[in-house]
């Protein structure tokens, strides 16, 4: 059994978190609130690091006063706490949503659409041909403008089957990923902490 204080804390947190599987209990609630508190605090520290490195340092060290604008916009977000002027928060939100939408749209057009089509149509083997057929079939399943009947009706049917295979694979991968984490925690509790397992 370990005599390390850190290992004991880690072990107790692990057991408290796992105890929820049996039933919700005060130990789990304490560990849960500790987890939320520390992760939120860590996120704040990381956010402060971003503000310091991206805006405060260039202002202080290089005199780039333009960084006052995003800082001011960030501060204006907090106007939502003051009733009469809460509408001001719409401006920084608009800037943030504009940036987010721009980045999402260019990523969607380039990475999720053009590059995916380009990767799908570059056929060089039997598997590539199968991939092309499966992608077309899957896309046809999402074609709702007109119902495909007769022999063409088999294409969305194949697409539906391909999607089921994809969902099955995604499910299997998720379960195995979670199992790997669980095995890691059990190995820690029985090995590193309690020393039962080598």
């Amino acid at each position, binding site marked *: 059994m370990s005599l390390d204080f850190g290992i004991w804390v880690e072990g107790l*947190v*692990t057991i408290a*978190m*796992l105890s929820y599987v049996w039933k919700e209990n005060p130990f789990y*609630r*304490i560990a849960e*609130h*500790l*987890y939320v*508190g*520390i992760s*939120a*605090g860590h996120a*704040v*520290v990381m956010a*402060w690091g*971003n*503000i310091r490195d*991206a805006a405060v340092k260039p202002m202080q060290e290089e005199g780039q006063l*333009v*960084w006052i604008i995003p800082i001011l916009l*960030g501060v204006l*977000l*907090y106007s939502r706490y003051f009733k009469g002027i809460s*509408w001001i928060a719409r*401006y*920084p939100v*608009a*800037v*943030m*949503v*504009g*940036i*987010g*939408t721009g*980045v999402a*749209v*260019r990523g969607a*057009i380039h990475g999720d*659409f053009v590059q*995916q089509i380009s*990767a799908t149509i570059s056929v060089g083997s039997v598997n590539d041909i199968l991939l092309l057929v*499966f*992608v077309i079939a899957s896309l046809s*399943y999402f074609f709702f403008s007109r119902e495909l009947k007769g022999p063409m009706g088999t294409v969305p049917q194949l697409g539906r089957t*391909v999607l089921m295979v*994809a*969902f*099955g*694979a*995604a*499910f*299997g*991968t998720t*379960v*195995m990923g*979670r199992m790997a984490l669980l095995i*890691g*925690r059990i190995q*820690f509790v029985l090995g590193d902490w309690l020393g039962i397992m080598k």
Partner: protein
Amino acid sequence: MKNSLPVAIMTVIALIIILDFFVADAPSVQWIKQSGLVLRSWGIVIAAFAMGLGAVNLLRRHTVAISRREPEALYSVVLVGSMVIIIILGIAYGSDHPTYSFLFSNILSPASATMYASIAFYIVTAAYRSFHARSFESWVLLITAVIVMLGKAPIGSVISGFFPTAADWIQAIPNTAGMRAIMMGAALGVVSSAVKMFLGLDRTYLGLRD
């Protein structure tokens, strides 16, 4: 003005960032590239302030619970205490401080891993309840999931070499095809949602309901 100006600002900013990616590298359009770069770095700073807004909301909710001595105020004390300690340590001494590292490595990391690990139980019980193979498609889903799980577990290759090979093929071909189709559909959805926002048809992000 209070409603239409933010929509105009959002549209102009989004279009600059989109154009920044698609315009050529010519000197005449350098201002678009430069503006796009500056706006994206501003986004990091504003998003950091927004993160603080979330933290303030969390602290407000729990400090109210403590001041009202609600039945579960003890848990709020734990949350507020741990949050304040890590914020003070992180901002005053940096994330290299030994206590900060202790909280991160001995509480946050194992709690996070265990939280995700415990989901394994719920996924398996949910699957047991919902995986009634009543149709061809549900059979396909069930069999694929079993093959992929056996393919990824050491026992799969002990039973037969078929499982790892089949799992790899399923992941590489039908899974990629299905996910690619979903991704393309989602990309079109992103673009159409953006157009709706540009036209002012969707203003819910400003807290406005049409």
